[in-house]
């Protein structure tokens, strides 16, 4: 996975408000040479989230990028574009993970492919999860004390909590 992809990806777990940028947990980083294409870089530059890119490239061990987007004269210089090119397209996260900044959920990166697929308990909104949970609880006769534990503020965790307690109630 290259940093251009990282700059576009966000945690899409239902209920997460600020899922961007994903924190990179690098295990294996490789560099692959890519043809230099200044037009592509200039097209992409206004669409990038600069801070996320600069931070991510530091984590990937490349700290040549400035913290702020430089002004136009610097942007047009080939020296800057070469650096951007290297950070954006040549640094690859081969193994590691992307971590949701809000929930800490890890999206694994394996053989350079980020796995952004969610588990089914991550795709419901809080309201749906709550409803589903209440139905199930009454159906399964879960004791009231366990029900209370679901009123925790962390809505996203509700269903997960439910699953675990539910399993326990069944056992």
């Amino acid at each position, binding site marked *: 996975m290259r940093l251009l992809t990282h700059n576009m990806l966000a945690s899409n777990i*239902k209920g997460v408000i600020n899922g961007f940028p994903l924190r990179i947990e690098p295990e294996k980083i490789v560099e692959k040479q890519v*043809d230099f*294409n200044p*037009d*592509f870089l*200039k*097209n992409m530059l206004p669409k990038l989230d600069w801070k996320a890119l600069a931070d991510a490239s530091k984590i990937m061990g490349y700290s040549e990028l400035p913290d702020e987007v430089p002004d136009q004269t610097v942007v047009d210089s080939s020296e800057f574009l070469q650096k951007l090119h290297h950070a954006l397209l040549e640094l690859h996260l081969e193994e590691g993970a992307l971590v949701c900044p809000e929930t800490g959920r890890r999206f694994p990166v394996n053989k350079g492919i980020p796995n*952004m697929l969610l588990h089914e308990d991550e795709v419901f909104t809080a309201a749906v999860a709550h409803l589903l949970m209440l139905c199930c609880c009454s159906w399964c006769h879960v004791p009231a004390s366990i029900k209370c534990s679901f009123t925790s503020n962390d809505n996203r965790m509700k269903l997960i909590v439910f699953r675990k307690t539910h399993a326990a109630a069944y056992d």
Partner: protein
Amino acid sequence: MWYLCVFYHRLLDYRKPEFESLADLFGAFDVDPTSSHSLQWKLPQHHHPDSPFHFVNLPSEDIARNIANRSILVKGIYEIWGEGSSYEELKESINRYPDDRKLPYLIPDSTFRIIIDSFGKATSFKDQTTRIQGMAYIPFQGRVDLRNPEHKFWLIETDDYGSANGLPPVVDKRIFFGREVGAADRKLLPTYQLKSRKYLGPTAMDAEMAFLMANQAQAMPGKLVYDPFVGTGSILVAAAHFGALTMGADIDIRVVRDGRGPDCNVWSNFKQYGLQMPVSLLRADNNLPPWRPGLKEVTSQHLAYCLCLLASSRGVKVGWLGGNESKHLPFYSAIWKS
């Protein structure tokens, strides 16, 4: 200026959309960006809309040439010097056509050839020679070069061939004579044909269709093309051929990560043709696209069309219509336009 556009007689519904996407790409609508981004079309008299012959109004010959050379379904775009329902009418019409449009292509040092074409029937070699000789009233001064001429002139005939060509009969016989401005390069189809591709899946997109889609998505250098259902990458290969950087997602991780081994996967398909590798492949579910807010989604008509095409062609093949995805067809996309 009006040109005659002759299409290949296939994929009829995609002919004009491809043409107009390319017209947009090559700047036909730049003068008035608020225009409807569609071109003026006219049918020859008594022709059915499915006919391969269409007149089209284009702002310049350069745009016409660019469209024709890049397209998959345009057999040729011609500057028409004359037309008629008989060879006598054609002669009159050609003679009336202004000399300043004709003479630059007839000068002594140029090379040319005349090609006889007809729609729905074959013309015998003997007839072709007679027809070419019959054009002697045009003051050609250049040299004939059959292999690599500077100017190609086409004599194209349509006739009422009954139902032989699958179209409702054309009432009038019509003969066109014109100079070729540009023609499709369909040689890239055999180069990219699926049967010689290394990594294939059950839904690999036919090369012709993939190039058609890349044209409608206006893939070109400096752009990023994203296929939300990448599979074996057959659409991205076409986009990469036109110089775009590519990106793809699939819900099946085996397809995007493993393929059929280290030398037979999505990456190897790009390597096979010497194309730029995709920027990224990832596993994602398009019900919940993993893109950050503020990422500009482009839902241009071309793109929406392109994805409709994708959804319909794949929907049928994979049998999605009964599956989960049918609720959220892939109208999400992140092609970033320059």
